[in-house]
């Protein structure tokens, strides 16, 4: 099986086609109940044919440009860069419509839903960004939409719940397990089994069974492709270091596709309380083999982080693979470091970023002058804007001041 995957990768990119069984080295695969297996095959076939169809690509690119606001700019941070002694570039996915990179993925999957003759999308969401994006794309293309969200997250991201409802989506609160992202995925998978005839499961990250990790990475490739060209324009070269936060890993995977075949150092940053890439053990969850937080007998542990979008006990299988072969590094940022990065970026650059990409920034701030040599060029993907987090940050800063 691994031989097969190697063949598909051979000659191409390090982030190549994972082949018919969706293997990234030992990771990936398609560990789903038999009821869902044919749907995964159908989806793979539909995606491969759409991705090879210039008309589909043109429709997607057109929507991302004229509806989504692409290309997003790259901003050089003069003041923060100077303070850190590096040249710091931000890939501004916060400026895409709906305020994060998630739109790239959902517009593609919504078009694919139509192409498969289905009229409904379901989605899981943590922070609510993917749910909002899925609701948005559904409204745009006239699809029904149901979003599953853990109860812990509907509370800390109440405004995003209302946003989804405004957009015409139904939000289902998930009260099982840890009542966060992983349980929302379980519930969405259960719903998909029962409704697969007319419903597409629009997964929000590079995780789950094949073809999702491959498909979502391809749909996020636009981030890396643009960032590569923009870096050349600004720096005259690719950056020395390319950094992105990792929940499931879709903004990181999209970003990495633009640089994986260059000399750039690639770094994915997880929440310290959900660091599956560094603390995880190989296992199977949500249809994939990857690195997971789990106990000695294989029960999945709950991730814990201030950012709902990174509260996931696993990472996408391709990240597990990139880590295993040493092509990418995975690091952690603590909640405190993240809050600092959030404030620093707002005050030195006038950007209120989402807590998720503040993990990537926090790592850069911590490593500048250490593993990031003075004078280095660094690109950080700013995967989303921070409006959704402002109320929570206010409370967290007040809490910290009181400590």
């Amino acid at each position, binding site marked *: 099986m691994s031989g097969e995957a190697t063949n598909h990768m051979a000659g191409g990119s390090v982030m190549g086609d994972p082949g018919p*069984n969706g293997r990234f080295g030992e990771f990936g*695969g*398609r*560990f*789903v*109940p*038999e*009821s*869902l*297996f*044919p*749907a995964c095959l159908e989806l793979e076939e539909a995606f491969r044919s759409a991705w090879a169809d210039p008309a589909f690509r043109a429709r997607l690119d057109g929507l991302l440009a004229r509806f989504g606001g692409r290309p997003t700019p790259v901003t050089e941070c003069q003041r923060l860069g100077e303070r850190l002694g590096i040249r710091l570039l931000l890939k501004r996915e916060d400026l895409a419509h709906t305020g994060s990179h998630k739109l790239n993925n959902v517009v593609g999957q919504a078009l694919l839903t139509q192409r498969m003759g289905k009229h409904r999308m379901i989605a899981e969401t943590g922070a609510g960004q993917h749910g909002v994006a899925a609701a948005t794309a559904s409204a745009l293309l006239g699809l029904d939409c149901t979003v599953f969200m853990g109860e812990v997250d509907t509370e800390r991201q109440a405004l995003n719940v209302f946003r989804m409802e405004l957009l015409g989506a139904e939000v289902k609160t998930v009260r*099982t*397990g840890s009542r966060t992202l*992983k*349980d929302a995925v*379980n519930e969405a*998978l*259960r719903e998909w*089994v*029962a*409704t*697969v*005839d007319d419903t597409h499961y629009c997964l929000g990250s590079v995780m789950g069974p094949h073809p999702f990790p491959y498909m979502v990475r391809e749909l996020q490739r636009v981030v890396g492709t643009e960032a590569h060209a923009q870096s050349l324009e600004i720096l005259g070269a690719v950056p020395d270091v390319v950094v992105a936060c990792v929940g499931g890993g879709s903004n990181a995977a999209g970003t990495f596709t633009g640089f994986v075949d260059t000399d750039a150092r690639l770094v994915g940053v997880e929440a310290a309380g959900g660091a599956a890439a560094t603390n995880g*053990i*190989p*296992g*199977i*969850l*949500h*249809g994939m*083999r990857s690195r*997971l937080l*789990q106990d*000695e*007998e*294989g*029960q*999945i542990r709950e991730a814990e982080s201030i950012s709902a979008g990174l509260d996931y006990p696993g990472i996408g299988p391709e990240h597990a693979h990139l880590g295993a072969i040493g092509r990418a590094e995975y690091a952690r940022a603590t909640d405190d470091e993240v809050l600092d990065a959030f404030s620093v970026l707002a005050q030195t650059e006038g950007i209120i970023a989402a807590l998720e990409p503040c993990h990537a920034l926090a790592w850069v701030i911590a490593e500048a002058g250490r593993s990031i040599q003075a004078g280095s060029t660094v690109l950080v993907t700013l995967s989303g804007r921070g409006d959704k987090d402002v109320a929570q940050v206010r409370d967290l800063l007040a809490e910290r001041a009181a400590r």
Partner: protein
Amino acid sequence: MPDTSVTARPGGLEAALRARRDGGAKLLIPYVMAGMTDDWIEVLQAIASAGADAIEVGLPFSDPMIDGPVVQAAGLAAFERHPTIQGLLDQLAIAELGIPVAVMTYYNLVFRFGHRRFAASLVAAGVSAAIVPDLPLEELDPWAAAADAGGIETVLMVAPSTPPARVAAIATRSRGFLYAITRMGVTGERAALGDAAAGVVERARAVSDLPICAGIGISTPEQAREVCEVADGVVVGSALVRRLLDGVGPEGAAEFVGELRGALGG
């Protein structure tokens, strides 16, 4: 593709089910979540005496992807007692049920134990078979090799969505019996049998001589009887588990299993 040797001799579960079927009986396989009540072993013993042909025992997993609300609640009830999987298997080992047991659990537990060690643990617990619903045919080989070598029968599932050629490939590789999922959806009780039930059983029957047991959503003695007009037997989960969560205990479980047995004929 997995080894499709037709010469493999049936294991304990398949032999028992074949003998019963060939004797003209319909097969009854109740499902119970291990550790869901303090007296779960007595529940198994009561069920075994009340006319079950085999028992499916769930091993609780933190993320039970195809379990409906009732079986999820049973899993949570089990976790509240802080069990270990090995501890539950140790309890099972001394249960002396007199009928074959198939465990049902998710692949991560198997993978984390290690394939060979998990198979050995099942053998030591007196378990005949394993059902691992998130392990499809394409990913089956590493576990199936260890299971075959250790003498554990791996029961595979076919669904209403499974195309005929795939049904044949799955049936060839299944051991113990062939599990026909009678509707698209998670486990749970339903008011009526789905339209898909007969079709999936007939597609399986056309390509396999294995005992075919239908499951997922079969809730009443009447539904069990109806599905057994085409199937060789039934797996009944949520309807029994709900009663156990309501506190009916071993006697209530035996009573319900007795009703199911009655509906299927002795």
